[in-house]
């Protein structure tokens, strides 16, 4: 199978996930207590807007026709209108993506690197005291409620030490452009990134540890030991390389958890990303935005799993494309 066909095939596998998610959305809205048009338009909507929404979703049409309309709408990228701003949800979501991407990307990158290094390091001697202690600590880390950790960081670094800003992505009176702005954003990023990174780093510590420990038990490691490679070289050059495969796989699968953490973190730090959008939507009961966010997050996670598969196929010669 050539690469292009593989990619296309995998892309096609996104379809069922997306369909299921859209149908769940649709069913939930219809099952929920209350009138569908009010759920979608908000209970403060004027009659004209209500009528417009009814028309838009074909709410007076038969059930299946409504579903079909909804599928077609969402499929063409129309996630409905936010009833607070009366703006398309899709545009609202897209405008928040960069901030979230910055936060999630940075903390994910850092936690994967740091987690893999620590995990590899403790895997040298599985079962040792260091290993047991660090492994237990890693479990402790991903058991931390990220929003609480955020608050504690604010309390300590922003309130007590006044080292870092407690909220937002940039200072109101900060520089608007150039390196000054970048520094300002970096300064604001420290605490949210730290919070999000801390709770996800534990996963990668454990993952890398078990992957490396497992690889170290493989016959080909015995072979290179017999050849005379030093323990260090074996660890860094062979074991780590083979152990990265499972790390990559899980990276994609865990994106959902990371996004969850991001929403909660953004809420704590008033980070102007998707999480904040969702939080504001919850406060205002702005259902279309929550629905849109659910679809967007699901598609992102499914897409990430696809990318992971591709990276895996690229890293592991045994996967024939």
């Amino acid at each position: 199978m050539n690469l292009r066909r593989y990619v296309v095939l995998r892309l096609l596998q996104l379809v069922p996930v997306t369909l299921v998610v859209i149908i769940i959305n649709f069913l939930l809205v219809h099952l929920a207590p209350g009138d569908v048009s009010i759920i979608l338009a908000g209970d403060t909507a004027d009659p004209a807007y209500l009528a417009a929404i009814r028309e838009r979703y074909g709410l007076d049409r038969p059930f299946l026709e409504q579903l079909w309309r909804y599928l077609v709408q969402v499929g063409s990228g129309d996630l409905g209108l936010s009833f607070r701003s009366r703006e398309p949800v899709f545009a609202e979501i897209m405008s928040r993506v960069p901030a979230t991407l910055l936060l999630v990307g940075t903390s994910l990158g850092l936690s994967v690197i740091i987690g893999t290094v620590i995990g590899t390091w403790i895997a040298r001697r599985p079962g040792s005291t260091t290993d047991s202690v660090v492994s237990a600590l890693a479990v402790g880390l991903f058991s931390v409620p990220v929003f609480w950790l955020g608050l504690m960081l604010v309390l300590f670094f922003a309130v007590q030490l006044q080292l870092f800003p407690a909220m937002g992505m940039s200072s109101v009176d900060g520089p608007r452009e150039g390196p000054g702005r970048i520094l300002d954003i970096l300064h604001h990023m420290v605490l949210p990134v730290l919070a999000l990174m801390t709770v996800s780093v534990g996963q990668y510590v454990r993952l890398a540890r078990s992957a490396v420990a497992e690889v170290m038990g493989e016959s080909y490691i015995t072979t290179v030991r017999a050849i005379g490679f030093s323990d260090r070289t074996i660890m860094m050059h062979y074991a780590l390389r083979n152990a990265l495969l499972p790390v990559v796989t899980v990276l994609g699968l865990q994106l959902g958890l990371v996004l969850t953490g991001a929403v909660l973190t953004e809420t704590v730090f008033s980070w102007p990303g998707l999480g904040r959008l969702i939080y504001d939507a919850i406060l205002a009961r702005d259902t279309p935005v929550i629905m849109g966010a659910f679809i967007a997050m699901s598609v992102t996670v499914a897409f990430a799993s696809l990318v992971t598969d591709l990276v895996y196929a690229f890293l592991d010669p045994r996967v024939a494309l």
Partner: protein
Amino acid sequence: MVPALLALSRRAAFLISAAIVVVTVIVAVTAPWLPLPDPNGMEAAPYEPPGPGHWLGTDNYGRDVLARLAWGAQLALIVALVSSAIASVIGVILGSISGYFGGTVDALLSRTIDVFLLIPSFFLVLLIVALFGSRLEFTMLAIALTTWPRSARIMRAQVLSLKSRVYVQAARAAGASHGRTLVRHIIPNGLAPIITDATILMGLAVLTEAGLSFLGLGDQNAVSWGRMIFDGQRQLRIAPWMSIFPGIALLLLVASFNLLGDGLNEALNPQLRRLAARATPKPPMPVGEARPATPGPILDVSNLRMSYRLDSGQIMAVDGVSFRLQQGESLGVVGESGCGKSSLGAAILQVMAPNATTVAGDVDLGGIPILRDGRRVVSHDREMIADLRWTTAAMIFQSAMNALNPVIPVGAQLTEAYRLHRPGASHKEALARAAAVFDLIGVPRERLGSYPHELSGGMRQRVMIALSLLHEPKLVIADEPTTALDVLIQDQILGELDTLKRQMGLSLILISHDMGAVAETCERVAVMYAGEIVEMAPTETVFRSPQHPYTKALLAALPTVSGPCRVPAGLPGEPFSAGETTPGCRFAPRCSVAQDLCRSSRPPRVAVGAGHEALCHFPAGSAA
């Protein structure tokens, strides 16, 4: 199970977390009767810091934080139990149906499971709660409805492996219906990992509920730790205790659930424990200046003992093995699996498993001492064996067992090994050498760029042999080099080994369970049983007049038309398990000529001919 539990109790983390969960349960159950203020009572002054009146302070309404914490424990546990129970039940039902019936049902269900696994559950819960209202029942149901695919996937795998078991087949044959078979025979036996995962689900459920409450979607009428943090957030500057304590409670409970799950998982999964098992090697033995090699045998092993550390204790895999090998000589080491023959090979090059260590014995390789009394000999901080590996002694592993790295092309594996011991060599030289050894063993040069999985079994084994010959070693230890290959290829490879041995003047140790293979290739044979060499003699002698009853049994199991044959199948009785102890002969329970003496005293090592020894009271049944 008992050693597993023992290992478990040794883990402090497991005990501490169990204790935390128990305390939380007690607090949650007894909350109404504890001498605590009403969690919703607003009698006290607001914002009172922790002190004698209110140990953990009061919140913005003057409610006691400690009391709310205790009541919050109740809610956390209810959420944990109910959500994970519902999720597990759904998972078990769908997972077992999918695994048991297979076919279209399975295809459909497992696709559904896959799809649901991809849906980020928190956002779905969020949507459900936002649409249906933040009643606790909805929250718990929503959590369960988004987490069941985990249990379903585990259960499906369990059922798939269980349904072919004998007792399940027997139940079906006896006329049990599908439903009954599933409920009575399959599900109960597959539940262990579900329960393990349920503890992890509990932690997840508690965190999810807390996250929802923190976003303001928690049940307004319930006292929830997440809700407390939500309230405390706005008072962070004036009353930090409002958010600090519920967070610590959450962290402790969730971490405990996760650690419990981890501990259970490890106890149920012997493979994880094996990874953790590790033996402490004896301290190295410094010798100051390394002496130049003394002329003599290429390998001199004397009274070598190697033990494995397992949960159940120590077992001695190699128990007092001594032999010498002259330059150019070949020795076959045969015995059933588990007799210690492979451990012997690993011990010589000191590449044992992490849970193995040499506890006694001396080894000299190429006239250089590498092991004294089980301790590695070091000179100037460098182990003597380090400079001898692959240059003086190399190993051929069974390539079917992943002995070559699957993600590196075979050529690169050869050039890396070449340059390791020739630091000055250029890549080109290394490549030329790799090509040369490929020629030697008959692997086409184009194969240098291939990955192991692209080669046939025979080719892979030849690559492994080529790898061992890179540095023209004096001694090659081949550990089951032809096992798992088909007979024709086996013969070819053994023949090639034999030719190489002659051409290069190699000394060879061939470790095999196959008497036939050894007979073709080796001048001398050592038969191992339960960690000991029970008979050693020139090959011809062993085949013509075996003296030890075990050797005789091995030979009797060989088909008359000489050809390879799996020996253990032909032998009656269970092999001696290395954990047993006996004052007498280890072979006695299976020996056809055993006498009382055999069971009460260790047999002596007796010379029964020229270069022929046996470990037996009655060699060749002489006393009978």
